[in-house]
C-alpha cells in the first residue's frame, strides 16, 4: 500500500509545485521531468535487455518534428496521437530490421540512426516540400507542458513497474542475461524486444512532441541534437538502468549538475560532462541504486 501511496503523494506534490516557483523554477521542473521521462523510457528497453541505444534523439526529434508539421492542420490531441503513431511506425521498422543485430552492431546502428533520420527529413523537405524550418505556434503554456510531461513521466514509471511484474518484463530480463537461454526457454525474442522497443520509442517520441512548443522554430539540425541521446544514457546508467527508480534517480541530480556547470563553467562544460561519463562507467557501472543495494546487503550480512 505504501509503495503505491508514496509515489502518488509525491506526484500530487509535484503537480502543485508550479504555483510556488518562479518561471525559471518551472523551467527547471520541465527539464527535470523531461529527462526523468527520457531516461525511464530508455531504460524500459535498454536497461533490461542491455541493448544500449544511442538513438533517443531520433525519436525525440521525430516527435518534435511531427508537431511542427501538423500543429496547424490538426487539434493538439490529434497531433500528439499522430506523433506517437509516427514514433511507433519508425520503431517498428527499425526494430524489425535491427533487433537481430547483436551488441556492438546495434549500438553503432543506433548511433547513426539520428543522423539518418535527419538526412531523410532534410532530403524530403528540400526536394518535396521545398522548405526547411517550420514554426510551432501553439497556445501551450509552460505549466501545461510541465503537467503533460509530469503525466508522461509518471505513466512511464507506472508502465515500467507494470511490465516489470508481467511476462514481458521477465522476458526482457532473461534476454538481457542470455538470449540463447531465453529462446530455448520458449521466449519469442523478436516479439519481446520489439514490444519493449516500440513502447519505449513511443514515449520518447511523445516527450519530444510535448516539449516542442517551447522551441517555436524547428529544423532538423535543431531537434536532432545528439547531446540528448548521450545525456539520457548517462543518466539512466548512473541511477541504475535495470531498476524502476534508477533512471529517475540518475536524471534529477545530473540535470541539476549540468545546469549548475553551464552557469559556472560555460567553457569547460563538455570536459566535465566527458569526465562524468567516464567516471560513471568506471566507478558505478551498474548504477547508484544497485551499488547502494549491494552495500546495504553486505552490511546486513556483516
Amino acid at each position, binding site marked *: 500500500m505504501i509503495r503505491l501511496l508514496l509515489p502518488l503523494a509525491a506526484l500530487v506534490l509535484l503537480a502543485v509545485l508550479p504555483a510556488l516557483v518562479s518561471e525559471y523554477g518551472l523551467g527547471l521542473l520541465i527539464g527535470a521531468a523531461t529527462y526523468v521521462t527520457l531516461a525511464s523510457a530508455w531504460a524500459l528497453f535498454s536497461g533490461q535487455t542491455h541493448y*544500449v541505444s544511442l538513438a533517443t534523439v531520433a525519436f525525440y526529434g521525430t516527435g518534435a518534428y511531427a508537431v511542427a508539421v501538423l500543429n496547424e492542420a490538426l487539434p493538439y490531441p490529434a497531433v500528439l496521437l499522430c506523433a506517437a503513431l509516427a514514433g511507433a511506425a519508425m520503431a517498428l521498422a527499425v526494430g524489425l530490421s535491427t533487433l537481430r543485430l547483436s551488441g*556492438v552492431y546495434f549500438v553503432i546502428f543506433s548511433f547513426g540512426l539520428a543522423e539518418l533520420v535527419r*538526412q531523410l527529413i532534410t532530403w524530403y523537405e528540400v526536394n518535396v516540400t521545398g522548405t526547411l524550418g517550420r514554426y510551432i505556434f501553439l497556445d501551450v503554456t509552460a505549466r501545461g507542458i510541465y503537467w503533460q510531461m509530469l503525466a508522461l513521466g509518471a505513466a512511464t514509471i507506472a508502465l515500467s513497474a507494470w511490465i516489470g511484474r508481467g511476462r514481458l518484463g521477465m522476458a526482457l530480463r532473461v534476454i538481457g542475461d542470455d538470449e540463447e537461454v531465453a529462446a530455448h526457454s520458449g521466449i519469442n525474442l523478436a516479439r519481446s524486444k520489439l514490444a519493449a522497443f516500440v513502447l519505449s520509442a513511443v514515449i520518447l517520441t511523445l516527450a519530444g512532441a510535448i516539449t516542442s512548443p517551447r522551441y517555436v522554430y524547428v529544423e532538423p539540425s535543431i531537434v536532432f541534437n545528439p547531446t540528448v541521446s548521450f545525456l539520457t544514457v548517462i543518466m539512466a546508467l548512473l541511477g541504475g538502468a535495470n531498476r524502476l527508480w534508477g533512471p529517475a534517480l540518475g536524471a534529477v541530480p545530473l540535470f541539476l549538475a549540468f545546469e549548475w556547470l553551464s552557469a559556472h563553467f560555460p*567553457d569547460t562544460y563538455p*570536459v566535465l560532462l566527458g569526465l562524468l*561519463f567516464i567516471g560513471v562507467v568506471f566507478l558505478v557501472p551498474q548504477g547508484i541504486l544497485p551499488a547502494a543495494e549491494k552495500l546495504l546487503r553486505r552490511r546486513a550480512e556483516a
Partner: protein
Amino acid sequence: MLTTTLILGLVLGGSYALLALGLTLQYGIARIMNLAYGEVALAAAFIAVALFQGLGIPPLVSLPGVAAAGYGAGWLLYQLMMRPLVARSGGGGRLETDSILATFGLLFLLQGVLLTAFGADFTSISYLDRGISILGVPVAANRLVAFGICVLAGGALVAALRFTRWGLSLRAVALAPGAAPLVGIDVNRVARQGFALGAALAATAGASISMYQTFSATGGVVFTMKALVIVIMGGVGNVPGALAAGFALGLIETFVATAIDPGLTLAATFALFLGVLLWRPQGLFGART
C-alpha cells in the same frame, strides 16, 4: 566524364580509407569501438596546423612526429582507460558496451579540450594547394599526397600483418583472443600495440586532413561516422576490407554527385551503411571467422 569521376572518386576514397584504417585496427585487435576516434584525428589536425602556423613546419614534415605522438597517446589511453575495462570484463561481451560508453565520454572530453585550446573557429591552411593534372583531370596536390599516404600506410599495414611475426601475433589476437596466450602471445601487449597503432593512424589521417580541409573543434563526430561506415562496410577489423570499402565509398559518392544528385551523397552513404549492417554485418569483403 567517366575518367573524371573515376579519378576524383579514387582520390576521395583514398582519404576515406586512410581515416578508417585506425578505427578498424583498434576494434579488430583491441576489441574497442572507439567513438572518440574522430576527436583524436581532429586533435592531430589542430596540432599539425599549429606547428605549421606557429613554427613554420609543414604538415608533411611534422606528420611522422604527429603520428608518433598519436602512438604515444593511444598507448597511454589504452593503459589508463581501456586496460581496466578489459580486465573487468574478463573477456566477456561487456567490454564492447563498456568501451563504447567510455569512449563516448572521451569524445566529449577531447572536444572540450580542443574547444578551450583552439577555440570554436574554423581552421584552414593553404599547403600544397596547386592543381596537378592527372589524365587531364585537375587534382589538388594535397589530396594526392593524402592518397599516397593512404596507399603507403595501408599497403605497409596489410604487408606487415600478413608477412611478419609481429603481424601474425596481431592477427592471432584478433581471431582468437582466448587462445593466443596458449601459444605464448602477451594479449595485453598486443592489444595495447593495436590500439596505439590505431591512434597513430588516426593522427596520420588527421594531419593529412589538415592539409586540404576546413575543420572546427566540433566536427570530430563527422569523421567518426565516416570511418564507422567504412569499417562496417569493409568488415569490422578487416584492414584490406577497410581499404577497399574506403575506395568504394569515394567512388560511389562521386558517382552519385555527378550522375544523380549531390543532394543524395550522404543519403547514399547511409543507405549503404544500413544495407551492409542489415544484410552482411560481417562486411562486404569476405567474412572474418
